[in-house]
């Protein structure tokens, strides 16, 4: 069974030009994401993870190559894509209640009023926020604010959900809860998720695949398949020997990336060879 | 030349060009808006006249006298009220009431008391700019770090030492903000007084030019008033930067 990729990042290159200075942030990124996948992207800090995500979201123009969403090249944020940002405190409208925050994108999609009410209620219930509809975001804890942002994305009904280090700024306990929430939402809604993180444990725990990026100018260092059981649990999954192996492997790659590696020697999944991906997506 | 400066000058150039070309079309008559070049030549003629300079000097004199009185009064009262908390809460509502009273409402009274002399205008200036200074000084004194205040108290600093070492350095940026606001307001009121009451100064020259139908001279004097405003703004900002070199808000601005 061959599925067309929902997201194709096709030899993307990004150069920031300001005045007479040019900084090459992304050199050559190439990968595909199939519908329904949960793919994590890790890399050392300064690896251009956020640049990549902003290119995919259509918030940033690419310098070379292109990003295709459901077959069509992206120029501007496409319909059917939602983003959860790292800075939850800055991505919710502070002058709107929680309900209004979740409802606004639906209004803009011209969803009828009754339907909107149902979607908002369901989305907030799904993330475990039944009783704060009328609160303002800044009255909630950080973890709860990020839940609101997730609810807003879920209610929007995207085909692809992009998450940019969404849990980097919440405490460890909340973080574990939110990771499980993402897994639960993904398996229940069948949405495709691209999850950017700098946390190796988080990437291995959440993903079906982990893309390890080099440092800037960025290429894909390796595309690691995570062959852990689908049902994951904070305690038992993390205790599996295979989890430890994968974690060690990814850790090694990130260390290489920090030292400036662009390719992984003695590894078939090197960058820049489309045929590798055609083999993978069967 | 950096692009921001180039664009700014371009904008200014376009503005001047519009002022030059627009009056020559049929849209507005020259009697309403003379071309920029004839405003400039009118300005040139003004510069040659002693009346212009004495008017400019009168305006500056009224402005600085009013601002000076308001600044001293605002500072003294602000610190006095600020360091005594009961006094502060007692006067808060009165200040809130008196501040929004439009100073120009006092024009008839000023004319009655002082006629059309400069003192009328100075009265308006003092009333309007006093509140700007007072309110800022009060905010500044309130902003004093409680730990520093406690420390000063525990070492049994006298009131004067306390004001000099603890209150003043904290309040200084606020004082300067108050002075900056007051300087602008004072200029507005100086020109207003001259224009409406007829006390000597640029404002009266503008009114005279208007009633004599000397449109070009009137525009030239308005441009001078604008340049005076720019000069006041720039020089106060320079003073602020110089005095507060050590202060965080300025350092942050410099870093940005």
């Amino acid at each position: 069974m061959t599925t067309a990729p929902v997201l194709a990042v096709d030899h993307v290159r990004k150069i920031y030009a300001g005045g007479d200075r040019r900084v090459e942030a992304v050199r050559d990124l190439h990968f595909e994401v199939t519908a329904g996948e949960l793919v994590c992207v890790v890399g050392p800090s300064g690896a251009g993870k956020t640049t990549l995500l902003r290119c995919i979201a259509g918030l940033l123009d690419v310098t070379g190559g292109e990003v295709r969403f459901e077959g069509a090249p992206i120029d501007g944020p496409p319909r059917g894509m939602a983003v959860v940002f790292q800075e939850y405190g800055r991505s919710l409208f502070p002058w709107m209640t929680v309900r209004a925050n979740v409802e606004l994108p639906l209004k803009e999609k011209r969803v009828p009023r009754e339907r909107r009410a149902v979607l908002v209620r369901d989305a907030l219930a799904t993330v475990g926020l039944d009783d704060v509809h009328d609160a303002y975001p800044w009255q909630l804890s950080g973890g709860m604010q990020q839940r609101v942002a997730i609810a807003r994305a879920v209610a929007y009904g995207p085909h692809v959900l992009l998450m940019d280090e969404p849990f980097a700024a919440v405490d460890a306990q909340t973080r574990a809860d939110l990771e499980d929430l993402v897994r639960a939402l993904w398996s229940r809604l069948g949405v495709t998720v691209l999850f950017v993180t700098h946390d190796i444990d988080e990437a291995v725990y959440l993903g079906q695949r982990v893309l390890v990026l080099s440092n800037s100018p960025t290429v894909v260092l390796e595309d690691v398949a995570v062959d852990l059981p689908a049902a994951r649990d904070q305690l038992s999954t993390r205790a599996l020997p295979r989890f430890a192996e994968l974690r060690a492997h990814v850790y090694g790659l990130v260390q290489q990336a920090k030292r400036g590696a662009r390719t992984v020697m003695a590894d078939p999944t090197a960058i820049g060879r489309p045929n590798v991906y055609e083999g993978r997506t069967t | 030349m950096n692009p921001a400066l180039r664009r700014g000058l371009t904008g200014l150039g376009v503005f001047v060009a519009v002022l030059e070309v627009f009056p020559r079309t049929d849209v507005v008559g020259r009697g309403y808006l003379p071309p920029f070049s004839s405003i400039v030549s009118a300005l040139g003629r003004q510069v040659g006249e002693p009346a212009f300079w004495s008017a400019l000097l009168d305006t500056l004199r009224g402005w600085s006298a009013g601002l000076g009185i308001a600044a001293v009064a605002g500072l003294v009262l602000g610190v006095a009220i600020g360091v005594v908390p009961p006094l502060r809460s007692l006067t808060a509502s009165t200040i809130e009431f008196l501040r929004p009273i439009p100073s120009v409402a006092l024009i008839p009274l000023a004319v009655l008391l002082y006629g059309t002399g400069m003192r009328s205008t100075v009265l308006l200036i003092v009333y309007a700019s006093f509140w700007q200074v007072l309110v800022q000084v009060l905010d500044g004194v309130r902003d004093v770090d409680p730990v520093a205040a406690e420390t000063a108290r525990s070492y049994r600093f006298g009131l004067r030492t306390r004001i000099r070492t603890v209150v003043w350095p904290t309040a200084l940026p606020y004082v300067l903000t108050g002075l900056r606001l007051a300087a602008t307001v004072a200029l507005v009121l100086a020109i207003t007084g001259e224009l409406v009451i007829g006390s000597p100064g640029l404002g009266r020259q503008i009114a005279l030019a208007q009633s004599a139908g000397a449109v070009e001279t009137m525009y030239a004097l308005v441009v001078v008033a604008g340049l005076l405003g720019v000069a006041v703004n720039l020089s106060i900002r320079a003073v602020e930067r110089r005095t507060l070199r050590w202060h965080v808000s300025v350092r942050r601005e410099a870093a940005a």
Partner: protein
Amino acid sequence: MRLLRSTLTAAALPVALVTAWWLISRGSQSFFWPPLSDIVAELRPTWLGERLRADVVPSLLRLATGYALALAAGILAGLAIGLSARLRQYCEPVLEFCRSIPPPVLIPIIMLFAGIGDQMKVIVIVSGCVWPVLLNTAEGARAIDEVLRDTARVYRLRPAARFRHLLLRGASPHIVTGARQALSIAIILMVISEMFAASNGLGFATVQFQRSFAIPQMWSGILLLGVIGVTLALAFKLVENRVLAWYFGLRRHQ
């Protein structure tokens, strides 16, 4: 109990001052300083009769019209300038000059175009008030959070919603600051445009009283202008507390 005490503290000095004025001026024979009782007694017959329709209401209508137009123009232009760094660089020196012109000098110029009627006064108020609104709004538009802008793009907010829910609300703390400055300028310009050239209005009438040495009436005019200034400042505070409730809440939580 606490509330009672703070009310007493707030009321004490104003009551004391007014009482002092009342007592000291009682039986005053001075021509310029009539008894406060006379001034207050003049308020009703002077301003609430024929003059209410002829002077007070026209003044307030001109004020309201000019202020509203200045707000609308200042906010729109300010947003445009705040959102485009390039446009801002082009406009900056011209704006710096325009806002430095003391607004009252515009009165003789605008009289050339618009005579001395209502139109002139409204234009004077607009051209004096628009600058603080414009410059503060531009500052506010610049200060709108980047992540919030990205969010609005990602969820494909249409222009109307972007304007209402992102730009206007995001810049509102700055807009309010500008609007507050503009309000006091508007009152000043209302009064002096009427003093300078008019056939009716509060400022005109008060100056007429002074010129005809109707001193208690003149004082009642000053008092009324003061009351209007204070009332508008209070009303502004109420609106501000409503419009910026989220902002004050946010700041308290930080």
